[in-house]
């Protein structure tokens, strides 16, 4: 007690770290219970619907494939590529888009989701916006050359789902792409 009295006379301030006032881990939530339950790979909402079409030409979104741990498969439509921090269509990209439009004309019931992707360089949020621009540029061009608007949708994955994970220009080039996923080969009944 003598020691305690001395402390008090020296002006020590006792600070109670009350349990209720403590930092977050005071009530440590269980991550799995706290956040929404993890979706087991292969049971995401979009995918069942897509699988139900039963057409061999239907593909899966890059997110579905990431969840399954599979490399992205190539469908009937070819990817187009972009320069760093650009979303304008180069000559080669336009040629690919014309070929993709031809396929869409032959398969008149197919609907396509256009994915915009970026390389890993730069900021995630900016790259999400850049990916959206790339997907939209591809969509706009397809519409210009005669594909119906309602057959096309877009989504950006920014730099988040690369096809190549090395740090060099050849790899970055492969990642700066728009990907075309056939999500429905027959009209919904």
């Amino acid at each position, binding site marked *: 007690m003598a020691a305690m009295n001395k402390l008090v006379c020296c002006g*020590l301030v006792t600070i*109670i*770290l009350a349990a209720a006032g403590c*930092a977050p881990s005071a009530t440590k*939530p269980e991550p799995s219970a706290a956040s929404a339950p993890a979706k087991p790979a292969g049971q995401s909402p979009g995918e069942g619907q897509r699988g139900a079409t039963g057409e061999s030409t239907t593909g899966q979104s890059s997110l579905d494939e990431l*969840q399954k741990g599979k490399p992205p498969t190539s469908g009937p439509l070819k990817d187009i590529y972009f320069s760093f921090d650009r979303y304008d269509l180069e000559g080669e990209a336009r040629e690919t888009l014309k070929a993709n439009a031809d396929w869409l004309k032959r398969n008149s019931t197919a609907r396509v989701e256009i994915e915009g992707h970026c390389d890993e360089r730069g900021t995630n949020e900016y790259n999400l916006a850049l990916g959206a621009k790339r997907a939209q*540029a591809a969509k*706009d061009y397809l519409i210009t050359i005669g594909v119906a608007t309602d057959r096309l949708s877009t989504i950006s*994955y920014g730099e988040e789902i690369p096809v190549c994970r090395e740090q060099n220009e050849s790899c970055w080039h492969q990642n700066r792409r728009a990907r075309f996923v056939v999500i429905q080969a027959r009209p919904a009944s």
Partner: protein
Amino acid sequence: MMAKISFAVLLLILNHGPANAQPKGETGVRGEIVGQGGLKFPIAVSPLKNLGTTADVGKLSEGIADTIVYDLDLSGWFKVLDRAAYIENPQKSGVALGSFDFKDWSTIGAEGLVKGGFTIQGDEVTVELRLFDVFQNKERVGKRYVGRVKDYRRIAHKFADEIINQFTGVPGIFNTRIAYVSTSGGRFKEIHIAHLDGSEKFQLTNNHTINLSPSWTADGKSVLYTSYKDRNSSLYLFELYSGKEAKITPRNGRYLGGKASPDGQFIAATVETGGNSNIILLDRNGNVIRSLTESPSIEVSPAWSPDSKQLVFVSDRTGSPQLYVLDVASNKSRRLTYSGNYNTSPEWSPRGDRVAYTGRVGNRFAIFTIGVDGGELRKLTAESADSEDPTWSPDGRFIAFSSNRAGKYHLYVMQASGENQRRLTGSGGDDTKPSWSPRLE
């Protein structure tokens, strides 16, 4: 021959003011002027004395001292003397003034000294900690803390904050956390939080998709982030106390990112429609108030000024991403950066005077700061590797960021001047996009 630095001299250095200035309670006290290779204050942090009868099975004696050493070292202002050189046996000498010999400490070159004791009762511990001026044989400050044994690091962080307060007039920032994105070695990106010393790691999301851009609400109670868990990118708010997660943005919108305002009233978000990304003002619950930009160019990454009246954001309206400052009331914006052709991820200093951001230099990315008036541009990291995504400490004295200088992306912290760059504990995966919490209780 290096001049001896006394408490008074270090106070002077850190405060950048006259010797008779009273540092306590002042605002705008600057601590970062201890220059490159500058004088560091030699301090000893003794292991604590067990004052009770319960055995120290949790090794609090060293654990508390180690935590204080880590914090002081991280600050960059102290030279913490190696424990192996200490003469005094902490279990056999006293804790209070007069019950130990200052010579044991001046002999080894210490000019500051941290000593303390603790008493364990059940799962509770009482800890007293004192800071001494060895040069003047005086006690500078003493505090007693009561907490749970398992929270002993928080007690140590609090006293480290107090030590910084003694030297600079502004408490330290060691009772804070960093929220960040980690792959943890897997292919998904999940949100994690951890203390600066890597303790109390906690995984916020576990939805096996892509979760991005965490940021804290001003009260430190929630983390806002972007997630693809419902296929389309949306903003979610995770409440740390309850573990409750809620999607806060409208169902049909695509939200690429967002940040809560310091006054707690608003969220500035990036929304994408038809390929165009623009900044939008939401209320704290995610309801749309109005658009802040309406442009066909890319407009992203809004970050609030400390008074919640302005935003700094990224726009590529001139053909390359540059930073702009927007006055929220008038919707008027002005360009901030003119140097470089790729400037992104801005964060406004809590002091209000500078903006930190990621800029491209050649083929690399580096952290820069710039005055809010566009002056005094400073590059803080070397372009031998990429450094990205700066975030300010709540006192504006430090910046955390992610860098691939050691291969994978890890989190680092440095003084706001760019000095004393230190790696924080890694996860084994790529750790990116740090967000520094406000001061926590």
